[in-house]
């Protein structure tokens, strides 16, 4: 048991994976300069036992030790002397080896979402063997583009590129002056190991609820406008029927009333706005599916479509050609300009 007698008084030292948001960061921590001064693994190990400041001192673990060293190695690899005071918010559940968009939001030390900073981005692979700690740049530096259209004040930065290896990587952003740095972990998976439909994959034919055949009908569409139910106009066709008719399909899977998180954004509004802007008659079949049987309960059961598509998360958008092949997909937020560009390819 950890009891009161286990408290230790120690100098305040930033913990691995923990940063002060409201206090000026200590520039001697996690900087390339620090690295070059020779604070390597031994140095890190020397001060970690004091981590935790004046309160409960977490027991140093191999994981914690590695994390501190990993961050120093990453900053060394990208040549930054900056301070890790930005956060990189990655809202994609699948980052694939094949070239694709990698979308992320960036916040500053006050947790304000950034949209107008010049940043470079790297993807870094870290060999976490304590005896051979190395950070290898596998992508970058790349200047990401910011896309905020349709996402209110949220917006995401986007980079594209092939990632050659599977496994845990770090996505790193740094301002051009090198003063500010953010790091987030991503898990890269081999596209062949993902059962979720990918670009060029054939979209499975699945019957989805419609206004004519709504199933139990309780949660066909949870969209609201000004707090009042306002079902979207994307429930006229079943996915199976649209594919059988060889029509291009926009399939959006989201629960608008229950999804407005940090970078999730109003996905349904982006899609509905594009649908309404198109001239009639529209060859494209627009289909919205709520992901949960009953979103009003905790840990709600997924609808059969999610199981068929092996989706571990929501929201998602799939754009499917008349040949049933996936043209593009959005895992998480969907900036309107990128969605429109993808739609132009069907």
């Amino acid at each position, binding site marked *: 048991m950890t009891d009161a007698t286990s408290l230790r008084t120690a100098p305040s030292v930033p913990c691995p994976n923990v940063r002060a948001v409201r206090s000026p960061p200590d520039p001697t921590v996690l900087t390339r300069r620090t690295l070059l001064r020779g604070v390597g693994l031994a140095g890190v190990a020397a001060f970690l036992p004091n981590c935790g400041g004046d309160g409960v001192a977490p027991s140093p673990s191999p994981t914690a030790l590695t994390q501190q060293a990993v961050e120093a190695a990453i900053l060394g690899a990208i040549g930054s002397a900056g301070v890790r005071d930005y956060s990189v918010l990655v*809202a994609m559940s699948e980052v694939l080896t094949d070239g694709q968009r990698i979308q992320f939001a960036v916040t500053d030390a006050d947790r304000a979402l950034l949209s107008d900073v010049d940043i470079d981005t790297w993807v870094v692979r870290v060999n976490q063997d304590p005896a051979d700690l190395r950070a290898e740049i596998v992508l970058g530096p790349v200047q990401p583009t910011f896309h905020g259209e349709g996402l209110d004040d949220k917006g995401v930065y986007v980079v594209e590129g092939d990632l050659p290896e599977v496994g845990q990587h770090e996505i790193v952003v740094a301002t051009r002056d090198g003063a500010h740095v953010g790091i987030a972990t991503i898990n890269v998976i081999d596209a062949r190991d993902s059962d979720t439909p990918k670009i060029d994959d054939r979209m499975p034919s699945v019957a989805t609820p419609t206004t004519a055949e709504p199933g139990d009908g309780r949660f066909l569409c949870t969209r609201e406008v000004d707090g009042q139910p306002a079902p979207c106009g994307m429930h006229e066709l079943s996915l199976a029927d649209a594919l059988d008719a060889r029509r291009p399909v926009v399939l959006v899977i989201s629960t608008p009333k229950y999804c407005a998180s940090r970078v999730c954004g109003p996905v349904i509004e982006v899609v509905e706005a594009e649908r309404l802007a198109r001239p009639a008659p529209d060859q494209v079949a627009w289909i919205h599916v709520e992901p949960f049987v009953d979103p009003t309960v905790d840990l709600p059961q997924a609808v059969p479509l999610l199981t068929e598509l092996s989706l571990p998360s929501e929201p998602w958008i799939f754009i499917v050609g008349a040949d049933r092949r996936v043209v593009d997909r959005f895992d998480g937020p969907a900036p309107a300009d990128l969605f429109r560009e993808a739609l132009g390819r069907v």
Partner: protein
Amino acid sequence: MTRLVRAAVGLAIVAAACGGEPATPPTASEPGTTATPTVVPATCAEIEHPVEQGGGHLVEDATPPVPYSSTPGTSGWHAGGAVRQGVFTEADALLESQIVAVLEVGGVVAAYDPDELDDVSLTELVRLAEDEYAGDLTVTPFDGDMGAPLVLNAWATRRPCTGLVAADLAAFIEEYAGVGPGH
């Protein structure tokens, strides 16, 4: 430490937190020993800000694609659907993804190690969650190595404690309840 001694620690905690004189340390004996344990009032460490993570809604009990930046997680991937708040027991404890969902809507979660937190602290926590802090404070056991018997959690924020320190809990709720980024 026996539960008897942990209860004694808790009594001292509550007494100290209520502003009175520190309680005289009660004595208790371990079977087969005559030692008198030293009772030290509970304390909380400094507030920590784990790296804020991004993430959407997980389907059912899916695991997040990357590890959380703290234990339990204080940001990032979280459970979809309705958010459960209130007081939970080992029989219906919140999953880590559900804890993060509570934090996202601005709740404060007191996560405790049921084998480590003293009974008096737990009883008082439950009372506070059901009374003064109803709607703001959720209490749940957590099956994981938090590094402390009790951890107060808000969005991208945590404060480990050895037991309940009422004044620190009040200050934490005052500062962080309602600051989640939405849902």
